[in-house]
């Protein structure tokens, strides 16, 4: 393996990891704060992608410039977060925070199944593809291999921004500190006047927006079709579990590991590429059952 091939595999891995990280970030944030594993996160991802394609198609058909696809991604993500994520937390999840994990998992899984059918109802089964955003940015050539600027530069850039932004938000802003406090000890936070319900709702919406944003950002690179949410939830769960549930920096590192592992596998031994993410997960969890960055939680009486 020469340097050029090594670098190519590195680029591919980073681009892939960026997308996985954005989705996993929302999942791990929600888990970290609410201790709930939201399977419906996969649906929010898919709906984010569908919404982006529909909005972009509609706006571009009106004759606007393709560059407008970028703000539309953000719009779609926020729509998904507020219109689906919000009611989901407010009417449903709020009622099951005290229930057993199995029940929580079943409820979010049920929501996932329902939303899968809603997608089919609204968008049908035909694959959609709209790469206006990606084409607007053009290509660059590295070692004779053409990459899209969108995948090689923009996606990793957004991922890093989100990671740093999330760190800053949680540690240095008031809302962020409230979220962290509620995460640490809900009862203590409530006793000093933090409105935990509000914090949960807000966090869930942020998480849902991130899922939608993942879908929106993925939409110019891939076919939008039924079942895409299921794939993504499995992969991002692997990332989140390997990192340690609720660990944001851990999720970034794990996504990178999985992305690189997968792309190097394609160069060295393609038959292995599907296995790599789960192989990494198994190895890590065998050695550290709480995940790479997870800490064994002290049980409260």
């Amino acid at each position, binding site marked *: 393996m020469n340097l050029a091939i090594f670098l190519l595999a590195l680029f591919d891995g980073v681009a892939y990891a960026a997308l996985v990280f954005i989705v996993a970030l929302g999942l791990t944030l929600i888990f970290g704060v609410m201790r709930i594993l939201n399977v419906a996160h996969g649906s929010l991802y898919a709906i984010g992608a569908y919404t982006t394609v529909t909005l972009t198609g509609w706006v571009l058909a009106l004759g606007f410039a393709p560059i407008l696809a970028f703000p539309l991604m953000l719009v779609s993500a926020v729509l998904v977060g507020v219109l689906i994520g919000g009611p989901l937390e407010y009417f449903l999840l709020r009622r099951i925070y005290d229930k057993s994990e199995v029940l929580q998992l079943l409820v979010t899984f049920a929501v996932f199944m329902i939303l899968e059918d809603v997608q089919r109802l609204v968008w049908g089964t035909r694959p959609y*593809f709209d790469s206006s955003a*990606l084409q607007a940015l053009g290509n660059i050539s590295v070692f004779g291999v053409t990459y899209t600027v969108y995948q090689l530069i923009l996606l990793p850039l957004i991922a890093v921004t989100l990671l740093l932004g999330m760190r800053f938000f949680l540690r240095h802003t008031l809302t962020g500190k409230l979220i962290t406090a509620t995460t640490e000890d809900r009862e203590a936070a409530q006793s000093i006047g933090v409105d935990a319900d509000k914090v949960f709702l807000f966090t869930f919406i942020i998480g849902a927006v991130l899922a939608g944003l993942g879908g929106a950002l993925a939409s110019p690179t891939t076919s939008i079709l*039924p*079942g895409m949410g299921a794939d993504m939830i499995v992969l991002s769960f692997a990332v989140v579990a390997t990192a340690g549930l609720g660990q944001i920096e851990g999720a970034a590192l794990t996504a990178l590991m999985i992305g690189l592992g997968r792309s190097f596998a394609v160069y060295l031994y*393609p038959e292995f590429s599907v296995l790599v993410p789960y192989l990494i997960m198994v190895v890590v969890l065998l050695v550290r059952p709480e995940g790479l960055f997870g800490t064994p939680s002290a049980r409260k009486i």
Partner: protein
Amino acid sequence: MTNRFVKRTVAAMVAGALPVMAIAADKPESLNVGMTTFLTGPASVFGVPARNAAEILVENINAEGGINGVPIDITFIDEGAGAEALTSEYRRMVESGSAEVMLASISSGNCQTIAPLAEDLQVPNLMWDCGTQRIFEENDYQYVFRTQANATPEMLATVLYLLKTNPDFKTIAVVNQDYAWGRDSWDIFSTALKAMKPDVEVLAEFFPKFGSPDFSTEISRLQALQPDVILSTSWGGDLDTFVQQASQRGLLNSSTFVLPLAESSLERLGSALTDGHIVGGRGDHYFLHPDRRDDEDFQAFMSQYEEKTGEVSVYPVFHASQAIAALTAAYDKAIEDNGVDWPSEDQLLAALEGLTFQGLGREVTIREDNQGIEDQLLGTSVQTGDYPFATMENIMIFDGDELTTPVGENSLEWVQTLDASMVESVTVDQYDN
């Protein structure tokens, strides 16, 4: 003692009744047909167009009085619910008498499950879309017929078209879906290619996960390897994603793509599929079929279909039309041959043997092992501007007889015996577009 008596009596009554049943059957209220197709899941890109086509075709037949005055009543079973649900639905439909003939299925795995089941249930089953060549090579069926080709002629025609249009290529890479079809089609394709052009070098073999949303890494590696030809037998969302991503990154400019199922993705791919790539449609299936596009029935159906769905026809539409054409042709033939109002099941099965019928493509004949002989159409993609997507030029239609594995032989073994002379000797009709 009593038990044996009852058995004998029943046996005698059945034996007495049998000849009567074989001679004629009462004309039913309607001919109930069950069709399995994907209404959910990734393969619904095939299943939904096929269902729409079947509905139109049945409606048209019924509007003209049905088969000898008997209207067809078609119901659908979703293959997307899984093999378990499919077989129990299938069994229920047949055993409750709500279907006399079954059309199954799209998935090769489902065909392999259903063939012995149809035999057990003694229900005539027309395999209308699945690709595996193993069905009639590994088993002998009485109730199962196939109204289309199988993977062998489809892959063989692709190799021949490639060798006729690009005789000098040196290297090839493959990117197929990681499941039975992706693996089997590559086996047949590579075996045929090795037999006819032994000096070709296979640079890379990729089998990304079925439903993979991202082929970026494969594309990077293909750009580094620079194969002359890239084969992908993928379909649906996978094929769309692969071609779109390859197109975005200029891979379509440096390699010739060979896409035996791309006819079903032409419209969705839009301008992404540039000029000069090989496109197939699993048989002679193309909404601008050069032999058929001027025919009145063809044009009438195409406009009906486009009106109903807002899309152009893809190959599953043709396959559905062939199954329904075979069904009506078999009933008509059985009625005529036996001089009855309505044929018995045995008469229907007899009529299906060696039946020739025509759906939307060219005529198809069912040969003695119940395998259909279907011609194969391939072309080269071209963006003419007449449509907002690529159409085909330099079309060749290969004669199905010569491409189908002889009765009783194994496809892979038979393909190995072929050689380069076939590229010249094969019967083919050529069209500019």
